[in-house]
């Protein structure tokens, strides 16, 4: 029984021997980074493997270390600090030496990293997310939001330490057109795992702000593909897609396109390009105003010209027409003047005719006419009184006939 009992050290030594015998060569291991911290030039990593599929269940876990010397070597190989590369959640392919220390236990000592593997994985993930963006049509909504005719109140998601942001501010403020802009910076983390969190928080802050921003900019200068990978977050993409204000991105260099760029309302290559775009946009507005002013001037001049011509025509008409009217009226009055006496004379003549006719009619029944028809009138003398009952023989009478008169004595009664 005693011979079966190991001291802890003996056991450790035995295990170390087993490891040394079986893992003489370094081996390539693929794993996901679950934790990473650099203490006094040494990087301590926690590597995990999750179950296939969407599950987050961890099925394997190991601690790993990158010694200071290796860290320098890797920095040179990646031409950037390795710490930026070793992000939580990232899949890496590392060459490890399995080391078992009798006191500290098992540790994977990382000797090399294959960045191509990580980039490949990231690219693959990115491809899947890009597909998801188009399936969910996340790339459309923000593009449909119209851009304000003039952009002045600008919310910027960036970092005032970032060169890209400083270039942007310089470009915008030094514009020769003298356009004024009101910039409000909402600081975000520009790389690493904090990109997603800070962008989401600051987008929410923009909506809470008192200012009604014309546009929201997401700006970040150039960097490696891994630096920009934070902007490939599907959560950021969803937030941009459903954001009620137009978002313009200027992330990275000419060739870079993050998923955020795909869903943004407008995606431009660099922060400087964004500044140029804003200036150009406002300049376009000013040009359209100037065009309108010219048009108004032109139209006004035309109208005035037309009115002048009309007035001249009116003036001409005015000088002719009244005189024509007066001439016509004068002619009419002259006609009346000539016509009126004739009219009156005619009217009188008509009356005369009427009267003479009546006269003739009356004449027909007068005494003389009666005498002409062979009658005679006999009157008593003296005094030419009409004959009456008192006539006696020997009374003198006068008889008037057509041709004259004669006296006679009544012989008998």
């Amino acid at each position, binding site marked *: 029984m005693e011979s079966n009992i190991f001291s802890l050290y003996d056991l450790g030594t035995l295990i170390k021997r087993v490891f040394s015998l079986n893992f003489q060569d370094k081996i390539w291991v693929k794993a996901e980074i679950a934790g990473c911290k650099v203490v006094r030039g040494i990087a301590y990593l926690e590597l995990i493997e999750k179950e296939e599929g969407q599950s987050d269940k961890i099925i394997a876990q190991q601690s790993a270390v990158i010694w200071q010397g290796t860290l320098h070597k890797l920095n040179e190989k990646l031409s950037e600090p390795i710490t930026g590369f070793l992000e939580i959640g990232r899949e890496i392919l590392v060459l490890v030496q399995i080391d078992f220390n009798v006191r500290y236990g098992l540790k994977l000592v990382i000797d090399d990293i294959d960045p191509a593997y990580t980039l490949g994985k990231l690219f693959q993930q990115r491809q899947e997310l890009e597909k998801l963006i188009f399936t969910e049509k996340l790339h459309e909504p923000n593009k449909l939001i119209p851009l304000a005719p003039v952009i002045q109140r600008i919310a910027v998601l960036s970092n005032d330490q970032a060169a890209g942001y400083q270039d942007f501010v310089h470009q915008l403020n030094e514009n020769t057109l003298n356009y004024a802009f009101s910039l409000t910076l909402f600081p975000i983390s520009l790389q690493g795992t904090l990109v997603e969190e800070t962008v989401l928080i600051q987008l929410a802050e923009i909506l809470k702000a008192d200012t009604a921003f014309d546009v929201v900019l997401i700006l970040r200068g150039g960097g490696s593909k891994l630096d920009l990978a934070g902007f490939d977050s599907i959560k950021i993409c969803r937030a941009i897609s459903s954001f009620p204000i137009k978002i313009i991105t200027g992330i990275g260099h000419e060739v870079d396109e993050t998923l955020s760029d795909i869903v943004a309302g407008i995606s431009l290559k660099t922060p400087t390009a964004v500044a140029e775009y804003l200036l150009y946009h406002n300049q376009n507005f000013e040009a359209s105003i100037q065009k309108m002013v010219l048009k108004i001037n032109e139209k006004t001049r035309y109208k005035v010209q037309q009115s002048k011509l009309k007035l001249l025509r009116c003036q001409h008409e005015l000088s002719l027409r*009244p005189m024509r009217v*007066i001439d016509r009226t004068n002619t009419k*009055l002259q006609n*009346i003047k000539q016509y*009126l006496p004739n*009219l*009156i004379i005619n*009217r009188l003549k008509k009356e005369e005719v009427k009267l003479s006719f009546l006269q003739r009619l009356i004449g027909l029944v007068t005494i003389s006419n009666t005498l002409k028809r062979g009658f005679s009138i006999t009157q008593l003398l003296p005094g030419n009184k009409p004959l009456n009952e008192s006539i006696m023989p020997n009374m003198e009478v006068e008889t008037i006939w057509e041709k004259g008169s004669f006296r006679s004595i009544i012989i008998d009664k």
Partner: protein
Amino acid sequence: MDNDNISYEKAYSELEAIINQLESDALSIELLAEKVSRAAYLLELCTQKMRSIEADIQQIIGTS
């Protein structure tokens, strides 16, 4: 009836009415002298008004 404030149009239409009456023999002989006198008055009034208007217009156009 014969006030000087009568407008040209009214004077002229009254004048026309008298002429129409003369033409159509609708005018009583009793009123003939009166109407003819009225017509002469209206004719003179219209002529005066026309002269005045003409002079005014000549002056306006001449000085514009």
